[in-house]
C-alpha cells in the first residue's frame, strides 16, 4: 500500500471531523489522529530508507496533466519532523487550551488544515501544488494567529495576511510565466527544460521574492514578530518551527533544481547577505525586546537568516562545498524546528504561570519553574549553536562548507550570530537567577513542561544522532 496519500487524507479527515463535530473530545481525538500520522510518517521514512524515493500519482494521472506526490529522503525527514513536532504541540495544546475555552473551538480544525497543507508542500512535485499548499497554509496560519480575537492579534493577523498575499501574488505570477514558456509545472521536468533567458530569470526572481516574503527574510520580516510573538504558545511553536520553513523549502528546491546555470552567483551572494543582515538585525532586536515572547519571535527572524546561507555556499561552488551546505542547512532547519518549538512552549508555560509577559517579570523564576527553564536552556543550546546539539552540528557543516569554498566572511557571520544569540538568551537566564525576586506563580500542568522538555531533548539528541537525517539528506543530492 502506498502511504503517501494517507499523509494528506488523515489531516483533512480530522479537520472535517473537528469542524463538524465539535462536541466530541476533540483534543484526545486529535492526539489519536496525530499519533496515526506519526506512525505513517515513520513507516514512509523507513520505506524510503530501505527502498529509496517513491512517488504517487493522484488518480494515476501523471505529470504534466495530473498531480504527482514525491517522497524522497528530504521529504520524509521533513514529514517526520512535522509529525513529531505536531504531536508534541497537540499534546501541549490539550492542557494549555484549558485556559482558553473560546479559542479551543477553532484551534483544532485550523491545526489539521495546517498540517494537511504542510504535508502537501513537503510532498508536492510541481509548482502549482506548491502554490495551493502555500495558500492553504497561509489561511490556516493567519486563522490561528487571530484565534484570540483580541485587537492586537487581529492586527498582527491582518498584517500577516497582507504580507502573505503579496508573496503569493508574486509567486503565482512567476509560476504563470514559467507555465507560459515551458508548458509544464513539474519540478523534475522543468529542471531539465529551463534555459537562461530573461523571461525565465524574471519568473524565478518573482517567485524568489514571493517566497522570501513568506519566509520573513530580512528586510521582509516585519510581519513575523507580532504574528509569532502574539499568538497562543502552541500556535507560535508551530508557526516558527514549521510554517516559515515550508516557503524556504520551496525556495531551496527551486534554486537547487534550477542550478548554477540559471542562478547567478551574485544573486546567491545577495541572498546570503540578506541572511547575514537577518542574523544581526534579528539578534539585536531580540536582545532589545522587553516581552519574552517577542524575544523568541525575533530569534526566529535571526535563525531564518542562517538558512539563507545555503545559497552563497552552494551556488557556484564546488560539489563538496555544496553538499555540505545543503546538509548543514537542512540540519539547521530540523534542529531549529525542534528547538524553537521547545522554546515557545517553555516560554508559553512561563508566561501562563507568571501571568505577565515581560522578561523582567521572570525574575527569580528558576526557583519556581526549574523544568520549564531547563527546557528553555536546552533549546537555547541548539539555538546558540553550541555543542552538543543539532544546531551546533548544522553550524559545523555550514562552517566546513564556507572554509572549503574559501568564503571566510560567512564563517564570520556564523560566529557573530552565535555570540549575539548567546547575549539575548543569557539575558533571560540572568533574570531568572535573580535572588530577591519572589514571583507569584499559578501552578501549571506538568504535561506542559514535559512537552517542552521532550522537544528540547530531541534538539540536543540531534547533536549525537545527526548522522541519521544527514545520511537521508544526501539522497536529493543528484539534483545538485
Amino acid at each position, binding site marked *: 500500500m502506498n502511504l503517501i496519500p494517507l499523509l494528506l487524507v488523515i489531516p483533512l479527515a480530522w479537520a472535517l471531523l473537528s469542524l463538524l463535530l465539535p462536541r466530541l473530545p476533540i483534543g484526545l481525538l486529535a492526539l489519536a489522529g496525530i499519533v496515526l500520522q506519526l506512525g505513517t510518517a515513520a513507516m514512509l521514512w523507513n520505506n524510503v530508507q530501505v527502498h529509496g524515493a517513491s512517488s504517487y500519482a493522484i488518480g494515476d494521472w501523471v505529470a504534466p496533466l495530473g498531480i504527482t506526490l514525491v517522497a524522497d529522503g528530504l521529504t520524509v525527514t521533513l514529514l517526520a519532523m512535522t509529525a513529531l513536532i505536531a504531536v508534541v504541540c497537540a499534546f501541549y495544546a490539550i492542557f494549555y487550551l484549558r485556559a482558553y475555552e473560546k479559542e479551543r473551538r477553532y484551534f483544532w480544525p485550523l491545526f489539521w488544515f495546517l498540517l494537511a497543507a504542510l504535508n502537501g508542500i513537503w510532498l508536492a512535485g510541481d509548482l502549482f501544488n506548491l502554490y495551493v499548499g502555500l495558500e492553504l497554509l497561509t489561511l490556516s496560519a493567519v486563522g490561528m494567529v487571530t484565534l484570540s480575537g483580541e485587537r492586537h492579534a487581529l492586527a498582527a493577523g491582518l498584517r500577516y495576511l497582507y504580507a502573505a498575499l503579496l508573496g503569493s501574488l508574486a509567486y503565482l505570477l512567476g509560476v504563470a510565466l514559467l507555465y507560459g514558456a515551458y508548458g509544464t509545472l513539474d519540478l523534475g521536468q522543468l529542471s531539465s527544460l529551463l534555459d537562461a533567458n530573461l523571461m525565465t530569470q524574471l519568473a524565478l526572481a518573482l517567485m524568489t521574492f514571493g517566497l522570501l516574503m513568506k519566509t520573513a527574510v530580512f528586510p521582509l520580516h516585519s510581519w513575523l514578530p507580532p504574528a509569532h510573538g502574539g499568538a497562543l504558545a502552541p500556535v507560535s511553536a508551530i508557526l516558527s518551527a514549521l510554517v516559515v520553513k515550508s516557503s524556504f523549502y520551496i525556495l531551496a528546491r527551486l534554486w537547487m533544481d534550477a542550478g548554477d546555470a540559471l542562478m547567478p552567483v551574485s544573486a546567491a551572494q545577495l541572498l546570503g547577505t540578506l541572511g547575514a543582515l537577518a542574523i544581526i538585525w534579528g539578534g539585536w532586536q531580540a536582545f532589545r525586546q522587553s516581552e519574552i515572547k517577542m524575544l523568541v519571535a525575533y530569534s526566529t527572524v535571526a535563525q531564518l537568516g542562517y538558512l539563507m546561507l545555503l545559497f552563497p555556499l552552494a551556488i557556484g561552488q564546488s560539489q563538496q562545498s555544496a553538499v555540505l551546505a545543503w*546538509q548543514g542547512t537542512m*540540519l539547521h532547519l530540523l534542529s531549529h524546528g525542534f528547538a524553537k518549538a521547545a522554546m515557545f512552549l517553555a516560554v508559553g508555560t512561563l508566561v501562563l504561570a507568571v501571568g505577565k509577559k515581560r522578561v523582567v517579570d521572570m525574575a*527569580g523564576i*528558576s*526557583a519556581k519553574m*526549574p523544568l520549564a527553564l*531547563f527546557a528553555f*536552556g536546552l533549546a537555547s*543550546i541548539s539555538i546558540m549553536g*553550541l*555543542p*552538543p546539539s543539532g544546531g*551546533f*552540528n548544522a553550524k*559545523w*557543516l555550514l*562552517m*566546513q562548507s564556507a*572554509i*572549503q569554498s574559501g568564503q571566510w566572511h560567512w*564563517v564570520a557571520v556564523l*560566529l557573530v550570530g*552565535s*555570540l549575539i544569540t*548567546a547575549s539575548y538568551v*543569557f539575558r533571560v*537566564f*540572568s533574570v531568572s*537567577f*535573580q*535572588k*530577591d525576586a519572589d514571583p507569584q506563580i499559578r501552578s501549571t500542568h506538568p504535561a506542559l513542561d514535559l512537552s517542552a522538555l521532550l522537544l528540547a531533548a530531541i534538539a540536543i539528541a540531534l*547533536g*549525537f544522532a*545527526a*548522522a541519521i537525517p*544527514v*545520511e537521508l539528506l544526501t539522497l536529493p543530492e543528484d539534483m545538485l
Partner: protein
Amino acid sequence: MNFWLPLLVLATSLVAALFIFTLPEERHALRGSFNLLAAVVKIALVGWMIIAVANQQTFETRFTLMGDIDFVLRADALSLLFAGLSSLLWLFTTIYAMGYLEGTPQRSRFFGFFSLCVASTMGVSMAGNLFTFLIFFEMLTLSTYPLVVHKGSAEALRAGRTYLFYTIGGGVALLVGIASLHALVGHTEFVETGVLRDVSPDLYPALTAIFVLLIAGLGVKAAIVPLHGWLPAAMVAPAPVSALLHAVAVVKAGAFGVVRVIYNVFGVEFSYQLGVLVPLAAVASFTIIWGSIQALRQSDIKKRLAFSTVSQVSYIILGLSLFGPIGTMGGLVHLLHQGIMKVTLFFCAGIFAETLGITRIRDLNGVGKRMPLTSAAFTIGAFGMIGIPPVAGFISKWYLGWGAMEAGLHWVLGVLLVSSLLNAAYFLPVIYRLWFARPAPEWPDEQIPAGRFETNPWLLLPTVITAAFSLGAGVFAAAAWSPLSWAELIAVREYLS
C-alpha cells in the same frame, strides 16, 4: 566492556545529575547519598581503567556522528590522569559542598549542575578527537554558569556575565581553530605523537595560525594572561564552586586541552619544529610572574588564591612547552599536584569564611589556635604552592627546572626562582598570621562555635584528606602509583613511541 566503560564513567555523573534535578528540593538525604554513591562508583570505575591501561589495555567508545566525524571517548594514560584527579576531587568536593550549603535554598539545582560539570569534565578528559573535546568543553561552560551565579546577587550575576563573555568568546576561537584544522587535515583524532608530522611545509603558516587560535580558545579557561579576567570575578561564587573552577574542572580542562593539542594533535616534536613552543613558554612565564604579582596585591583570601591559580596553572603550560620528557613530566604532574593543593586551599578559605566569617587576610591573626587542623591544611597547601619540600609542589618545580635545563632554556630557571619568591611573599605572611600573630579580641562573624571539632566535620574531613594527599604525593613521589610515576608513563609513551 571496553566499549562501554568510558560511557559508563560518563554516565555515573550524568545520571546523578538527571536524578538530582528531578528530586524535590527537600529530599536532602536521598540526594546526598545518591550523589556520594555515584562519586564512589565513578572512582572505582576510573580505578579499574587505570590499572588496565597501565597494563597496555585501551578502552574506546566510538560511533559516527555525521559524515566523516566520529564521537570518540577513549581512556588512555593521559585521559586517566585528568579523569582520576576529577573523580577523586568530585567526591571530596561533594562532601564539602554538602556541609557548606546546609540550610541554603536551591540545593537540587546546585548539585545537579555540579554533577553535570563533572560529567563534562569526564568527557573532556576522555574525548578521543578535537570534535568530541569541543562538545564537552562547551558543555562545561554551560553547566558551570548556573553555579557561578548560584547566589543570585547582582554581583554574582555580573560575574556570570563576565564568565560567559570570556568562555563563549574562547569557545568561538576554539571552534574556528578546530573547524579549520578539520578542513585542512580531514580529521582531528588524538594520536600519540600527533597527526601532523607529514603535512607539507606550505601549510606551516596556516597551522601556526590554527595553533594560536586553539591555544587562545583553551587559554581562556586555563586563565592565561590576558585571558584570565573571568577567574577573579568568579570568586563571588560559593567556596565549593571555586574549588570546582580552580581544581576539579574548568581551569584544568583548559590546561588539559593544551596538553592534547601539543602532544596528540600537533605532536611535541612537530610543535617544536613549527617554532610555537618557545613563544608559548614565554607567554606562560609572563602569566606566572603577572599572576603572582597580582596575588601579592590582594587583601581578600579568595582573590589572592584566584590569582595564585592564574600563576600556577601556567606552570603546567610552561612544562608542556619545554621540549623534552622531563619538562613534560613536570607539567603533567603539576596538573595533579596543583589540583589537590589548590582544592585544599579553597576548602580552607571556605572554612574560615563559614566558621569565623573571615574573608580578609588581616583577620586571620591567630586562627591557628582556634582552628589548628584547618590552619595546618592551609599551611601544607601554601608550602606546596611555594615549592617547599616535601609537599607535592616541590616535585613539580624540581622537574620543571630540570626540564628547562634539558631544553636549554636557562631563563626559565629565573622565572621559576622569581615566582617561587613571589609565592613565598604572598603565602608566608598568611601563614605567619595564622600561627604567630596575636588574635583580635573577637572573630568577625563566628557562625560555628568550637565544639568537638573546630568546625563542621563535613567541611573539615575533605580538607584534611586533600591536605594529606598533597603531602603524600610529594613524600611518596617515587612510589609505583604516585602521580609522578603516572606522568612518567605518559612521557615515556609520548617520546619513545
